């Protein structure tokens, strides 16, 4: 388990990560979202042991990460700006990583390279941006570490590669309990893979929730009332967002499906429909409740 307590990192006068408390459980896929400059990369670099926290603690399985070789052998960091040795090939990089990662699975590396159609002996400098990303991910997955820290990893990947990699992550999570921590500024990227999400803003974490819990507790309902209501038709339920166009209402409300359906029975609308919420909508709702405008935070 990854645990941070009041983890803080300051660059000169800039407070990049500000007293962040979070827990990431083994086998979960943690999405770290936030706008540019929110502190995602810095937080991830702290988790990877590159940066030492100025204050607080960053621990994996109750051990400090910074300068801890044994813990770092269980972590692999994929940077948003990957580094490859000059004139090196993917096989060169693989051989180098093998020196450090004891569980490096060469057979898997071969399989993934073949699967992605990458030539292990071709100079990496001749690869496209997306192919370089793929090489990094392949090395990261082949290292067979317990934790994988991905910084904007899906950026620059084509949709097929993106889905493939998500599938690989999901497979590793299911098969061997991999814990990926994925930082991104794009909510849609994380929607179909993360089961836990933390929102960083100006170095501080606004909230950190389980995605299923959030989805279960929030619903979007579209309904047409037969006649104008007297008083608030949704009194008794916690409406986070309400839109009205004539007799058509669209609300985002907190509560179980059963609670909302019960309310619809009372209202007897001409039509009602329970719509699925996107991750973005969930975040917008949650952050608005917290007094923030997510659109401003992420755009």
């Amino acid at each position: 388990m990854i645990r941070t307590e009041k983890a803080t990192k300051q660059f000169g006068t800039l407070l990049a990560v500000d007293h962040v408390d979070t827990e990431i459980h083994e086998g979960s896929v943690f999405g770290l979202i936030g706008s540019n400059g929110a502190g995602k990369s810095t937080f991830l670099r702290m988790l990877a042991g590159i940066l030492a926290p100025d204050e607080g603690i960053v621990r994996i399985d109750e051990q400090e990460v910074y300068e801890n070789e044994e813990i770092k052998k269980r972590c692999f960091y994929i940077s948003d700006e990957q580094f490859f040795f000059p004139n090196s090939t993917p096989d060169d990089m693989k051989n180098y990583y093998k020196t450090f990662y004891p569980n490096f699975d060469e057979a898997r590396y071969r399989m993934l390279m073949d699967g992605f159609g990458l030539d292990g002996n071709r100079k990496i400098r001749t690869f496209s941006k997306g192919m370089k990303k793929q090489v990094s991910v392949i090395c990261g997955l082949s290292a067979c570490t317990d934790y994988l820290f991905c910084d904007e990893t899906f950026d620059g990947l084509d949709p097929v590669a993106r889905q493939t990699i998500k599938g690989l992550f999901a497979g590793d999570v299911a098969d061997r309990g991999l814990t990926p921590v994925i930082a991104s500024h794009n909510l849609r990227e994380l929607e179909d893979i993360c089961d836990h999400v933390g929102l960083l803003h100006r170095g501080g974490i606004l909230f950190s929730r389980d995605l299923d819990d959030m989805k279960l507790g929030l619903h979007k309902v579209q309904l047409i009332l037969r006649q104008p209501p007297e008083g608030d038709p949704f009194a008794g339920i916690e409406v986070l967002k309400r839109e009205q166009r004539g007799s058509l209402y669209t609300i985002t409300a907190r509560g179980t499906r059963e609670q909302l359906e019960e309310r619809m029975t009372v209202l007897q609308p001409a039509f009602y429909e329970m719509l699925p919420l996107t991750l973005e909508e969930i975040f917008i709702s949650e952050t608005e409740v917290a007094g923030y405008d997510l659109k401003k935070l992420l755009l």
Partner: protein
Amino acid sequence: MTSKNFSFKSLVRHNMTSRMWAIALSVLGCLAGLLLPIFAIQQNYRVQLELAAEPDYVFTAADVLKNTQNNIAQVISFDSPFIKLVLIVLATLCGVAMFRYLHDRRQVDFYHALPISRGKLFAVNYISGVLLVLPFYLIVLVIGLIFVSAMGLGGQITGALLAQSILGNIAYFLLNYTVAVLCTVLTGNTIITVLLGIWAQLGIPVLMVMVQCYQAMFYETFSSAVPLMQTLVLYGSPMCNYLATMQHSHTMSVPLFTSTAMDTAGGMAILLYPVVLTIVLGVLSYFLFVRRKSENTGMAVSFRRVKAPIKWFMCIFSGFAFSLIFTAIFTGSSGGMWFGLVFGVVLCHMVVEIIYDFDFKALLHHWKQMIVLAILAVVVVAGIKNDVFGYDSYIPDVDDIASASIESPYYNIDWNYNYQDDIKNQLTDAESIEKIHQLAELSVANNGDLEVEGSSHTYTIYYTLKNGNRVSRRYSEVPQKVIENQMVDLVTSEQYLKQYSTLQTLQITETNEEGVTRLEVRNSAAPEGTLPQATLISRNEIQEVIDQLRADQIANAEAHLKEFPVMQLTIENEWAERPEDNRGALYSADLMVYAADTDTLTLIKRLTGVEPVELTHENVNSVEITQYDEQEYYDYMNQYGEYGQDRFIEAHTITVTDPATIDALLESAITGTMSSRSGFLAQTASYENSLAISAMIENHQGNETWATKESLFYPEGKMPTELINQLFNAQ
């Protein structure tokens, strides 16, 4: 499993294979620094051998071989500047290359995310950098030695020489490499690394030179040959020290080993400097590397706390430099000096702040520090200027002095000059040290005292302290009357004479069949330019004369100072092997005999029959006297030009041939040769009215007669002025 997997060797190997350019550069550099000079010498050897086959060529084949072997040994030895320069460049390049990743965020993230501790990463990189150069240096050296041996040119290469060369070069390579590593770790940008590297190598020596300039400007007693400062200059920079340290002590540099000292612990002790400094800087680099924050990549200086001290030092340095430059531009103007000082500090502060922030807007950041630094620089220079540290009045405590000497162009026991600033030549006995100390006290009290009548003198006192420090002070205006007695007391003491007198320190070699060692004997009637009156070639006889004269010099030291000599002995002596090149050299010295040295004169008379003679009409054919009024001379010259000079002199010269008049003129006269080699207190009269007197002296030997013209001098108050005037009036 994990610790087994981490392979130090494979990481080092990877580091090396990914830097093939450095290996190629190492091989090429070592080839250029070692093999190329060897090939050039070998080519020259072949040419010289062909020339040696010619009958009238100055060198024989054996000479050519020996010279070539010497040259090859020089290239292989620690003295070779070629390989030193190559190793300095390679050390700097590899030091920066191995740690330059610290200046790139992508690489820092890559390396620091890997499961390897900073300490191990440092060790891997440090060792990789060393292995990029040293094995190839040794391989090329071995190839060179094989080639040299195969050509038969390695005769002068000994095991000791090789050991000196290899150990010295490796030690200094590691030192310069570590300096480069330290600079790279300290900075977050490669351009700043280069600037810091230049600064680290040249900053302290240049600062020392500037401090010397200030001392020369402000201190009356400043002595430029202060060995401590020279030591600081050399030892203040690894690169300067490396280039200046030599195996042989005949150069002006710091000797690493003398030709015989390598086998002794003392010779090897000099290696302590690079070894100790490498360890200290290496540990510091390791400590800083481990403590270095990854996020400091890209910054000018990676450690916030060292930013300010570096800036302070650079600002003071810059202030000193600009102050001296402005003083030179405005030819010694103190206004220029003060303006330059403040300007230098301010300019440097602004530049450093811009570099630190990589932002021109940072020009006036920390402006309060800038003002404080400018004030501090002014205070320091004002302090030096006003001698608040008591430089001019400083005299070491007599109990702290291990040895001392005085270098004076006037108070010298003989006209042959000894190197009294050389530590090996200093006086070590307590009595002499006490005398020198008393002289120093007198000098401090009276330096520049213009109220005392008479001439004043300039001399330098050198001290070597018991703690190894060396100090010197130069007193430039000390009245002679004040120090005369102490000076005479010192320079006539037995210890002083035995240390500095040419006569006492002379070494006589065995006379060979060619009579290389010989002693020529002359009295006043046989001046230089004529045949000597006698020549001794027997070693025993020469030694007997020298020993007697030595005893007489100590017994009659005061007479040697105050009198004119009556006889001149010239010894030509084959010097034994010179330490620097094992070759002999001809050494010639004039030894003067005085009337007080009766035992020596008796011995010379017994061995050669020669005794002192007075100058009379019997050995002087004629006396020429030239006397003229200077104004008349200049008027004449203006009128007739330089072609009229001979005619003017001729018109104002009389030639005396009358025996009685010659005898009267020669009654107290001394020849120029004897006068120039007289004791320093033996004063001759000053000529007035452009008077010049010379004698045509005849020297008879067997059937041969030699005549030479010698200038005549007179002891003070003994010049026959009246007679000279009468002679001119009669004309």
